[in-house]
């Protein structure tokens, strides 16, 4: 059981190019390990959903009033 190492290789593979040994180790391990076989689609889903939190999908924004209040607070500073 070296799921810790295999999942590390899977993650590393999303960040950089893996060498052939690492790729083979993942494939061989996944032949008999359901956890690591399941881990891959789960992890890919995380990559997809987390990036949707940024960008044009604006979570929230400051209102005009709030910006004016900040300006007032700054003007009051000595």
């Amino acid at each position, binding site marked *: 059981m070296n799921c*810790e190492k295999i999942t590390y290789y899977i993650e590393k593979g999303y960040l950089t190019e893996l060498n052939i040994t690492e790729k083979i180790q993942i494939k061989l391990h996944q032949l008999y390990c359901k956890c690591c076989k399941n881990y891959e689609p*789960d992890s890919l889903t995380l990559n997809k959903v987390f990036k949707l939190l940024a960008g044009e999908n604006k*979570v929230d924004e400051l209102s005009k009033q709030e910006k004016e209040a900040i300006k007032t607070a700054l003007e009051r500073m000595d």
Partner: protein
Amino acid sequence: MNETVKIDASTWVDEYADMLFNYAIIRVNDHELAKDLVQDTFISGLKSLANFEGKSTVKTWLFSILKRKIIDHWRKQESRKTKAFTFFNSEGMSKGGFVEGHQPQGKLPEIEAQMEKNELREALFYCIGALPSKWKGIVVDKLVEEKESEDVCNDHDITASNLWVIIHRAKVQLRDCLENKWLNL
């Protein structure tokens, strides 16, 4: 305060408040807190205006102040939490294997269709929030904002292999968190 600085402060709000707020909100997920952090950033900026020598742009300089404030916030928040959980067995026959009860079920792809739901966004923010403070900035930069690995490493002063290790540990925790938080409701 002299007249030039006053004008600057007001222009700063118009020019940088939205950018700073966007940066803060995806990292703290709390409107009031993000607003306060932005205001504090401007205040710190004005107070230390004398130290700003124009070596960087105003934007870069304000962002560096905000980043420090967010890290301080995470650290304060973390002191109340318990130690990080280990997801792999450290001894015995199943050494290196997933700990019982935390084995990946491969169910997360089901959530993709529900991305529009606010509850899912909240669950994602909750899971990021549960990460150790040292990892949060790195995880948001890399997984949410998809910055280049090289830039993330430079910004956080870590090596490429540090980044691989941190992202691996964080993803294992995020995967487990989301499976529990979202699918077992």
